[in-house]
């Protein structure tokens, strides 16, 4: 399942449409990091509304995306976290 990445001004928007496999998540990470450089993006918005459950791999990947994007010069905002998942975010740092 490919995640579309939209470019809006200086920002990139990745809107996740459905549950993602680990491979999809890794691919999303690579694509986002590459595009941050290519489009000189200042910010990345990742919309995770469609993800009902987030396993620890997803949480870690999203965190990695935020860190890597920061290194490449963009801030990351993650929107639409379901009420059930924040506990996992806290437990996995």
């Amino acid at each position: 399942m490919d995640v579309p990445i939209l470019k809006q001004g200086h920002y990139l928007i990745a809107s996740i449409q459905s549950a993602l496999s680990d491979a999809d998540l890794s691919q999303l990470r690579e694509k986002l990091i590459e595009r941050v450089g290519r489009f000189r993006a200042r910010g990345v918005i990742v919309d995770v509304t469609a993800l009902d459950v987030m396993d620890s791999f997803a949480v870690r990947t999203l965190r990695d995306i935020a860190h890597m994007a920061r290194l490449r010069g963009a801030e990351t905002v993650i929107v639409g976290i379901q009420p059930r998942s924040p506990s996992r975010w806290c437990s996995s740092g």
Partner: protein
Amino acid sequence: MATRSKERESPATGIPVHTPQDTAELLRELVAHLRQNRTELREEWARRITRAQLLTAMTEEEIFAEATSVYDNYVEALETGTFEALQAYARNLSERIIPRGVETHEVLGIVLLLRDVLARSLFGKYHEDFDKLNPILDAYEPAANRVANTVAVGFVQERERIIRQQQEAIRELSTPVLQVRERLLILPIIGVIDPQRARQLTEQLLQAIRTNRAKVVVIDITGVAAMDSNVANHLVQTVEASRLLGATVIVTGLSPEIAQTLVTIGVDLSEMATVGDLQGGIEEAERLLGYKVLPLEELTPKA
């Protein structure tokens, strides 16, 4: 001729069986023989070099010309027992042929070939007079070995000198610290960063911060292909040290691969300001310094 007078005085040493006078006498005979057959031996040698496919980087005429001068120097070294001239020649030769891609084994090969050719010719001359052949070889071999040694060592030394010189040049070149605006420095890093280079880089940067009274430094690592935790930690330390000297550091141009590695190995980079590319880094630095870059039309009042 200077060599003529030297010839009588210089005894070759290190041959236990004969007295120095004997050896000198024999060497003189030997040299006379080599002089006499100069043309044939030289040609034979050049032929052998070509046959052995050595010095493929050079044309046949060049090989022959070099062979001639090596031969003359060789004979002279045998004759005088002094190797300074040969050493100088070997160095000079190496200087000329190393840039053309001549390998160490080729140089060794041709010197040994010359030794073989000459020994062969001595065998040919004295094969009926075995009592003479032995002392002649006794006199010839140590001298010839020393000659071969001198040339080979000269070549290797020249090589090492070139390598040292280039390392020096790379070290000098590798870390230019450039000033782009008043109190703004750029440090572009290209290539592999090893611990030694990282240390030198830090030193030069801190020095430059001091002399230029820099307030902002942009370190651009677009040209760095990979980074391990040691180098990353060193970079963090450099940033810290710069901060102590009063300069803010902005790191730019992290490739996706480096970004992934750094996050994966978990280097703490929270203290480091990073911007996507050099352009962004300079813009950010200008903002920090209070510069604003405008197109010319906006500056000149419209008439």
